[in-house]
């Protein structure tokens, strides 16, 4: 598959943006600049970026608790994302959502859900709207190997298949649900094997390879737009950091081998993409480094933006409850 150079460079930029955003989040979170949970996406960047590169702004995504990668991959703004983590009024959700609930309705990011598997039926619903109205958009639900065991996933896949809805079920299999391994919790070798139970294609993809993710997702999107129904894609990947920031301090005992972590770190998705781009003459080492540096700079500016944004006022507590407001009880 011939991929446009702009798309390849956009993928590299977005992957560096996520990586540098997350590194910054880890730095400022450990410095105590904001509280609350945050779940770093480091190591998994190729999954969301490759998948979202196959989408248009008019397509929809929903996501989960590991929530910074999806919006940035879909083209979201790091300044509004960072301000949301800081709980400020200029954040994506005016400080009401925080790390686990980023959303940008202007570009189809319908929101990240802290309850796992819960946003998958929502993505199916967006696709149902396309089906009823005859619109041409698709929707994509990101979920993990852990959520693949939720009933909502299975109901959603069945529903999407019987109605041939334009939805892509995008499993980020990072192999651990917090500290519990895939092998302990999933009855099949691959999440993608579950597609056959719902009469849809299941694709197992190297989730460290952004180009492979882009190609697989492009095929699923084409299928969805053609009215042929849903696809389940499993991006096999690995979480390089802890489940959430600070969790390492409370977990009793290790649940992953150091050797396993080291082995996966050798398959860094940024190295893999850069090597491909350089070897194919798409970009030079200097160009790749410049993209990295530009995203470092952009994340730095986003962090300053967040720090300088005001906190919400007490009266903001009561805003945004209703579209047609009603009196407080």
């Amino acid at each position, binding site marked *: 598959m011939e991929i446009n150079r702009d798309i390849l460079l956009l993928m590299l930029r977005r992957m560096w943006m996520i990586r540098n955003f997350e590194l910054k989040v880890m730095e400022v979170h450990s410095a105590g600049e904001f509280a609350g949970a945050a779940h770093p996406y480091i190591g998994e960047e190729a999954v969301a970026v490759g998948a979202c590169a196959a989408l248009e702004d008019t397509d929809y995504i929903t996501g989960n608790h590991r929530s910074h990668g999806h919006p940035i991959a879909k083209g979201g703004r790091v300044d509004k994302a960072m301000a949301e983590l800081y709980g400020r009024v200029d954040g*994506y959700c005016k400080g009401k959502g925080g790390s686990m609930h980023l959303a940008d309705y202007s570009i189809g990011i319908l929101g990240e859900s802290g309850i796992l598997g*819960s946003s998958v039926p*929502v993505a199916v619903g967006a696709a149902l709207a396309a089906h009823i109205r005859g619109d041409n958009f698709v929707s994509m639900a990101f979920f993990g190997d852990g959520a693949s065991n939720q009933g909502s996933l299975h109901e959603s896949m069945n529903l999407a298949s019987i109605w041939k809805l334009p939805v892509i079920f995008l499993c980020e299999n990072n192999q651990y649900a917090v500290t519990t391994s895939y092998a302990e919790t999933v009855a099949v070798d691959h999440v993608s094997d579950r597609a056959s139970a719902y009469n849809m294609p299941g694709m197992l993809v190297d989730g460290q390879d952004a180009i492979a993710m882009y190609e697989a997702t492009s095929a699923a999107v084409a299928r969805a737009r053609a009215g042929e129904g849903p696809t389940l894609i499993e991006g096999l990947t690995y979480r390089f950091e802890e489940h959430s920031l600070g969790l390492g301090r409370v977990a009793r005992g290790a649940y992953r081998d150091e050797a396993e972590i080291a082995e996966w770190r050798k398959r860094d998705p940024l190295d893999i993409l850069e090597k491909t781009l350089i070897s194919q003459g798409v970009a030079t080492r200097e160009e790749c480094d410049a993209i990295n540096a530009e995203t470092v700079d952009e994340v730095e500016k986003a962090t300053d933006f967040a720090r300088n944004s005001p906190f919400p006022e007490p009266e903001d507590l009561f805003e945004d409850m209703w*579209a047609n407001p009603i009196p407080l009880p």
Partner: protein
Amino acid sequence: MAQTVFLEAINQAIQEEMRRDESVYILGEDIRRAIYGATADLLTEFGEKRVLDTPLSEEGFFGAAIGSSLVGMRPVVETLTSFMWVAMDQLISQAAKMRYMFGGQATLPVVFRASMFYGAGSAAHHSDRSYPMFMNMPGIKIVVPSNPADMKGLLKTAIRDDDPTIVFEDGTLFGMRGEVPDNADLPGEELLVPFGEAKIVREGTDCTIVAIGGAVNHAIATSDQLAAEGISVEVIDPRTLVPFDKKTVLDSVEKTGRLVIADPAHKVCSAASEIASIVAEEGFWSLQAPIQKVASEQVHIPYSPSLEKHVYPDVPKITAAVKRTLES
């Protein structure tokens, strides 16, 4: 004015709104063949894409309705209260919370029509009157109609409202006949009942009964019987619990000095509990007697009719409660 059966009123509301607005569609279990009656003939008029029979997957299709509402559809979900338990995550984590959590970006014009089949031997798994549980959770508007005209007018308002709404349809009223105005006789030629406006069903001076859903008819019967004994009872139907028209209730209690609340839900943390607390906090100095709650006994719904008939508010219980307020 036409005499209309409660179920027909539901059907008219859906049909009129589907004709008016192409983004309105309906989904649920067995609705194409209208096994509960409310969706009769919709398939013929509106076709398969807008009248969707779903698999038994409440979590899946409740969520799908919610997701479609985010992108401009106006879904009407048909279900039973008792089936909502398996979709609670979608109702609470998504429908109720999304708008606030996302800083006002999400708009969810989704309606859940939840039938409450109690009082007819349906036993514990099919007899829930669960609206108080949803009153406790911010983010969902709650409607409990008590007659065909309000059923039609409130459902039409719910479909047009931009917030998630659950319409609790009282199964004990499904066969009730009542006057529903002809559209041609109405301003704007349609019946719309606003949210947050209680209705004074009977005017009276000695005691106020606030009654919910199917209990409204019992309260009216109580009022009529007590009138023969020279006791003047005012009956108020809140019609919507979220938003709740507390002014009408407080004004009435100021006049009568006494309050009975008749609520088919379980009595602990019921709608009656909340209304009692509002009046205790804001209308205390109007009260001449303790507030009386007449709600369902705190047991599960038994199958045997000889047991079930003792569970719910009825005319004798409400009458006794009114008399207790007058003894003080």
